[in-house]
């Protein structure tokens, strides 16, 4: 093996390529995210409801309402041409709706879990139903948005035709749920009392801290591989923009969600109360497709898989993706497999 001091030529090449990549990144500026045509069909208190695509034929297609998490922005589902879950769903013949949560202002710190998972979501469901002239909707809940969708379906099952959950935490206390362990003893009353709305940078920092070597070092050194790949650099820049853009969290929602689920695991314990009603996953009887990632470090597969033990659906199936929490939205492999499979599953259940 060579001694370390013999790596001069390799170091020179790495330096040159890194300089090239970073120089190009500097010139790229802030790249646009979101490529699919859409319109706002409802503006509510704390959210906008978007409808994608165009044309009269949307009415004849199978519709799906995407419920994204409050953490980060939903644009990772529409990152760029060739990496857009939304575009793939549209291409698969779906009429796609998406809830865009608005950033909470200081005066919104008392906005609670129920406001999102019951009231705002219900407004969107009713709007989609009205626009489609249908009595029920298909929900696609992503990550925390999947948990919202589960709660909503348990409470308003008569409005949900089919439910798809994607990388959705259900059992927050599985052994490999590192994030849950980390926040188990955080004094949420004090934290929320201190900040009001919890800064997005706080959450972002925690997420990055879960894979510090990979997310803090390796992905940047890997820029040397993109020195001759301008499109790859633009994708990198878009991902960096998305990762860094983490909205603040409404204080009360943060306290209720983290306290109720991460700390007390109330959803699977049948102790979660929203809007004065106990959320009983056993009330979910509609068809359920549970999509999860086998290498998910944020929402371990075990946390998602637990859903099978709690819903009463006789039509329950799973789609396992051999990748991670972000890869399931943007990787080439996921793009080929996940959205078409979700669309086909929904279209078979009109």
């Amino acid at each position, binding site marked *: 093996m060579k001694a370390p001091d013999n790596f001069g030529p390799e170091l020179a090449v790495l*330096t040159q390529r890194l300089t090239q990549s970073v120089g190009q990144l500097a010139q790229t500026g802030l790249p646009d995210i979101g490529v699919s045509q859409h319109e706002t069909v409802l503006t509510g208190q704390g959210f906008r409801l978007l409808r994608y695509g165009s044309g009269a034929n949307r009415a004849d297609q199978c519709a799906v309402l995407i419920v994204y998490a409050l953490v980060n922005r939903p644009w990772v589902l529409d990152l760029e041409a060739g990496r857009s879950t939304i575009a793939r769903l549209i291409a698969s013949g779906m009429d796609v709706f998406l809830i865009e949560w608005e950033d909470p202002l200081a005066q919104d710190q008392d906005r609670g879990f129920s406001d999102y998972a019951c009231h705002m979501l219900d407004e969107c469901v009713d709007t989609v139903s009205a626009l489609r002239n249908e009595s029920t909707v298909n929900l696609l809940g992503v990550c925390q948005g999947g948990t919202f969708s589960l709660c909503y379906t348990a409470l308003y099952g008569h409005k949900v035709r089919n439910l798809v959950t994607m990388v959705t935490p259900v059992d927050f206390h599985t052994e490999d749920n590192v994030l849950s362990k980390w926040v188990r003893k*955080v004094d949420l009353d004090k934290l929320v009392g*201190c900040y009001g709305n919890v800064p997005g940078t706080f959450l972002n920092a925690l997420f990055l801290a879960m894979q510090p070597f990979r997310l803090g070092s390796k992905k940047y050194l890997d820029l040397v591989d993109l020195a001759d790949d301008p499109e790859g650099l633009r994708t990198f820049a878009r991902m960096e923009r998305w990762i860094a853009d983490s909205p603040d969290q409404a204080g009360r929602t943060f306290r209720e969600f983290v306290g109720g689920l991460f700390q007390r695991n109330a959803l699977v314990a049948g102790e979660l109360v929203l809007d004065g009603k106990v959320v009983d996953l056993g009330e979910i009887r509609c068809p359920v497709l549970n999509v999860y990632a086998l290498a998910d470090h944020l929402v371990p597969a075990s946390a998602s898989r637990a859903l099978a033990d709690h819903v009463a659906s006789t039509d329950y199936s799973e789609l396992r993706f051999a990748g991670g929490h972000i890869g399931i939205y943007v990787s080439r492999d996921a793009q080929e497999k996940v959205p078409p499979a979700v669309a086909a599953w929904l279209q078979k259940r009109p």
Partner: protein
Amino acid sequence: MNPDASANWASAILGLHQLLSDHLEKAQPAVPPVRLPEPTDWLQTMARVTAPGLAPGLAAPLGLEGLPAHVERDALWESAAQRYRAAASALHAAWLEIGSDTFDALRQALGGKSAPQDLRGIYDLWVACGESAFARQGATERYADLVSELINAQVSLLLASKRCQPKT
């Protein structure tokens, strides 16, 4: 591999790390974030300013921006600062253990027949060893307690600092 050689490898990897860091810091592109995070970066992210009265290099809690450089410290503030220093130090000590475990694993891997021969490969191996060491430590109750205590201590310090702000 003998210990001296191991130290050289560590130095080479850290040199590459520093090179990367320097390049990214010089670049100043419009795309955030390009600064290379440090292993304790989440502390730094939460702590964008130096808290008044804290030791140099010790991160301060998010939200202290705009506080005067000198606050009217009282016993409560001193107690909160002491708690925060202890929590940060304890997590830092855990990180030193992770770093040490990482290099032990790297040393062992570099002694194998399929060890990479190039600097990039060795850097990637160091990352893999680091993530593996971190995954073991990060999932323990002890590490979880360190993280939650740091968050709680930061919040206490922030609250104490806000309380000590001069009334305007």
